[in-house]
């Protein structure tokens, strides 16, 4: 795949956001990954050229971070948290079921363009076991509901994140990570029952913080 002039302009825009352009390297790598579904040699070179660093220097960074992929994720990235809490609460079984369904193991891409990854803590432990699709939240999954999500995606059906927008694609999320104003912030499922658990208890039991002093 060849980077378009649009992408090259966007790379320049990212570099211009920072007092020192090299600070843009991580978002720039997300951007080139949004074109190819992986960080290609061409993408590395494009980033390096914009920043005036060598391809080796850019590669050293790209290989450090786990979100940058070496195999093209043509369709969807499926993450399952198998860190202690999610894994023991059922994430291990979710991972096994998805691995069987997709026919691949950790960090592998199947023939349909789905990558499966054992991910580390996703900062959603209250919603364990946690799965992600293109890094959008799929909270509180079971082996059955996780496989059903993959089945629906495979049939091209619309799938809604549990907290977040309708699932798009891996590359669309990667573009969001470079340019986050994607118009999808409104998703009305964003704040769910678990995020409101304490507030609801407080409301039921008439609990509140001390009142605000008048002089303030």
């Amino acid at each position, binding site marked *: 795949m060849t980077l378009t002039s649009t992408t090259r302009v966007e790379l320049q825009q990212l570099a211009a956001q920072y007092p020192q352009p090299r600070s843009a390297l991580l978002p720039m790598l997300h951007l080139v990954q949004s074109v190819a579904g992986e960080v290609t040699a061409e993408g590395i070179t494009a980033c390096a050229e914009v920043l005036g660093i060598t391809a080796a220097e850019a590669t050293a960074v790209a290989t450090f971070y786990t979100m940058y992929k070496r195999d093209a994720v043509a369709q969807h990235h499926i993450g399952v948290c198998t860190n202690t809490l999610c894994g023991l609460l059922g994430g291990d079984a979710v991972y096994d079921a998805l691995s069987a369904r997709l026919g691949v193991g950790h960090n592998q891409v199947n023939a349909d363009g789905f990558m499966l990854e054992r991910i580390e803590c996703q900062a959603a432990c209250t919603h364990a076991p946690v799965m992600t699709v293109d890094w959008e939240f799929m909270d509180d999954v079971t082996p059955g509901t996780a496989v059903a999500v993959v089945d629906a995606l495979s049939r091209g059906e619309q799938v809604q994140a549990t907290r977040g927008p309708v699932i798009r694609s891996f590359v669309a999320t990667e573009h969001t990570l470079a340019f986050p104003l994607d118009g999808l912030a409104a998703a009305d499922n964003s704040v769910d029952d678990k995020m409101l658990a*304490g*507030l609801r208890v*407080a409301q039921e039991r008439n609990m509140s913080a001390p009142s605000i002093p008048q002089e303030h």
Partner: protein
Amino acid sequence: MALTPVITEFWDDPSLYTLDGYKSHGGYVALADALKQDPDSIIATVKDSGLRGRGGAGFPTGLKWSFVPQNDGKEHYLVVNADESEPGACKDIPIMIANPHALVEGVIITSYAIRASHAFIYIRGEVPHAIRRVALAVEQARAAGLIGNDILGSGFDLNIVVHAGAGAYICGEETALLDSLEGYRGQPRLKPPFPAVAGLYASPTVINNVETIANIPYIVGRGVDWFRQFGTEKSPGFKVFAVSGHVKRPGIYEAPLGITMRELLDYAGGMRDGRPVKFWLPGGSSVPMLTAEHLDIPLTYEDMAAAGTMLGTGTPMMFDDTVSVVKAVTRWLEFYKHESCGKCTPCREGTYWITGVLEKFEHGHGSSEEVETLVTLCNQISGRSFCALGDAAATPYPAALKYFRDEFDAAITTSADEQFNPSASYVFAEAVSR
């Protein structure tokens, strides 16, 4: 002790994430007040409030700010650490999704106080929904003249950049975060110099956690006396606790510091199926575990330290008696091994060896000598690594051994899965073929 929603008070208003929604609940009033004050008086207010960093270490926030040399003619920077990746920690991402303007208002006030004209919010890359909501909040604040040049006619200029990381737990370590934000591999720096003197681009930099910064509008807007009604002398204020694990109602519970785990557990509906607490961790996998006998200790920095652990991120993980502690600890060490940045030998090699030995125990092939070998390995990492990741990796095993030595002894011959049926720990009833 009662729950006290402050940061979470209006989370049931679906418009709270917008500028209008936030303003309808009093948002950005504190900013207008702050910009009329001398920056030093805001630093003094935050110092007097006693606010301590909510990222895990609990360092006094106002003190950290005061380390930035003033009138030095150098550019100053504020960097928000939104790399929430500690296993068990899940409170910053909800804050950014539900109430992003509290963070943005805190960033503007803090930048004014430390005289920074550039601020960065470094959010881990794996949470696009939090990133887009914070980015929108920044954009709306910019459009309303709350970010940019001459904010509210004060003469104060500020630019805020929302920056996505790319998957590296180590970037939650503040100096690794700076290297990452400069476009390098995220590896920690030698301290001193500390970031307050030589941080981002070798300039004075304050790095604060999301929840810490989200406290600032409430402290500045409502005052030190109001803030100190919560918590204890050494741990003032309120805390966004995230309770996870085998509880009936896992979720976000905001309460004063000093509430006990038993009280929080009661609000969360108790343990599932009335099962007993086997072990729990007050704030992430990097703090030593506790047991049911510790449920009545106040959740403060000082009381947790006295109990031999740390408050950490204040996000308790609760495990019931279906869980194998050998398996839990092994999994955490696999995490630290995976996330070790490789810069220093004790952590890079040590996490490899501890994990290898622990995996033998998990599979029922340990030995009595190796129960002690693991202690030695942990001692050789703790205090000898470049940053706190090594210390953290050396934490789970000694704590587990202290309370559950019999399980490691049993794992010399009996695997974790034979000792504890894995499916008994699952939170769903669905049958699983293994």
